[in-house]
């Protein structure tokens, strides 16, 4: 049995569609109910839906053999997992954003609000820039508008929210997309099944 952790929401739906085409369907997934696990015993696959930021935890700790996680989560939490494929979906950019006319005054500490403190710290440390990190859990765009921070480090998809609030992406830190990840131990003991799954998914992506 292959256990797959999928992120709840749009990305999870897209990822499931790829896995379904790759030969891992599970009709129960399409039923409208509140179930949390879905199994197709004939093919030997079990899916479960979890918060996108928790997928890597399920995989790293072996509750799932494989999972679909955003590169942002992998960079932020650095789980000890294999990163097998770039699924080229859920594409966006990790950016520094701030007021359109923002100019960085290097004579003072830069205040940075973010949901991704490790990514922000690594980025600014590589730029030798002293920063004050402000860890927020949501509505990051509000921080520079009300003077909580100078800039933000956040995911930018279309940039629409930024523009509507008079903000703009200032620098791109790294492009983000969904990745197929695997538990290291599972990849030894379910080697054939997981290598086949990787190859099948890659085949669908390239078709």
């Amino acid at each position, binding site marked *: 049995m292959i256990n797959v952790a999928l992120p709840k929401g749009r990305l999870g739906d897209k990822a499931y569609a790829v896995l379904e085409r790759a030969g891992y369907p599970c009709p129960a997934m399409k039923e409208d109910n509140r179930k949390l696990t879905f199994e197709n015993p004939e093919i030997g696959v079990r899916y479960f839906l979890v918060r996108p930021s928790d997928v890597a935890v399920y995989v790293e700790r072996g509750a799932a053999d494989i999972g679909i996680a955003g590169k942002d989560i992998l960079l932020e939490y650095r789980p000890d997992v294999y990163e*097998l494929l770039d699924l080229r979906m859920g594409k966006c950019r990790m950016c520094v954003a701030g007021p359109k006319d923002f100019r960085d005054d290097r004579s003072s500490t830069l205040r940075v609000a973010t949901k991704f403190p490790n990514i922000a710290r690594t980025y600014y440390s590589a730029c030798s820039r002293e920063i004050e990190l402000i860890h927020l859990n949501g509505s990051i765009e509000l921080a520079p508008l009300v003077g909580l921070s100078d800039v933000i480090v956040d995911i930018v998809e279309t940039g629409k929210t930024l523009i509507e609030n008079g903000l703009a992406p200032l620098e791109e830190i790294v492009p983000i997309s969904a990745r197929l990840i695997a538990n290291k131990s*599972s990849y030894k003991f379910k080697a054939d099944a997981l290598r086949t799954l990787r190859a099948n998914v890659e085949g669908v992506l390239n078709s």
Partner: protein
Amino acid sequence: MSRLKADERISIRLRELYQRYGYLPYRVSRFEEYDLYMRNKSFLTSEHVLAFSDMDGKLMALKPDITLSVVKNTKAGGGPVKVSYAETVYRVPRGELGFKEIMQAGLEMIGEVDVYAMGEVLMLAARSLAEISPRYALDIADLRLPAGILAQEALTDAQKAQLMALISDKNLHGLRALCAELAIADKTAAQLETLVTEFGPLGETLPVFEAMNLPQACRDALCDLRALLGMMELYGVGGINLDFSVVNDMNYYNGLIFAGFIDGIPSGVLSGGRYDYLLSRMGKKGQAIGFAVYLDQIDRLLGEKAECDVDVLITYGADTPTDAVITAARKQTAAGRSVRVQRAGKADIRYRERIDLGGEENRV
């Protein structure tokens, strides 16, 4: 019924195994000078160290690692050192938020590390895993292969570390992108990709690398791996895979490197390899190899949870003669069963059999 916990039971078996091959027991004190760990921070699996001030104001640490203590106390110029240990270490396991006391067993060999020495240590690593479960995998690699391939290009240490991290993550798409960004020659890039794509049983995977046109340093490593394969066959040891995702910090390790996994345990339970560079960084001459087995996760293995706390519960009342209680208890222990003897009444433990020797409460 064995009342030892799984980690205690296995640590005893591992100590016996290592001593059978002449790895003398080695005890280190629970505390070590904090400075030792700060100077070799990246050798540790976690950078966090529990520190405290000693009576004389000296900063001390609860040891997070044994290897550094062994190396520190090794005298130069003596014969080969072969030591083994089973000790408690204190560190923050990956992905966790607090310190844990972890039982760790392992061995170190310091001296001239030839093919025989490598083979013996590798065999003991595989047998250590087999003591935990027959469903094990020992992934091995030789750092001279990636190092030899990377030496063909003019790369900085930081770029090499980035490429090694991608190999370790089996991240083929990331490796391809970085090779393109760094303008690495197609031939070198293809060789690096093979380090990600080819893994599996040593006997089947080794010929793939032997057939490649690799630099001399890599070919030396392949010769050693071939010799090790032969030795493992002689020892009758299986379950060994060639897998370059075990590559580790090249500042400390060189040559053979390995990691062990058990089916049912989500992360590696054994890690080891050649660490000549650690020796030279600590101002010692010579070569060294060793490994550690982390026993903190083995309780997770299925079947480790006991169905019962004791085999037999014996209860007695206020008027039960003491010698009758002792006779009943001795009868059970003599038969190899564990007993819990207590006054009649409620028992909050699980038992297979109950013997009541009187008491009002039993009659209710």
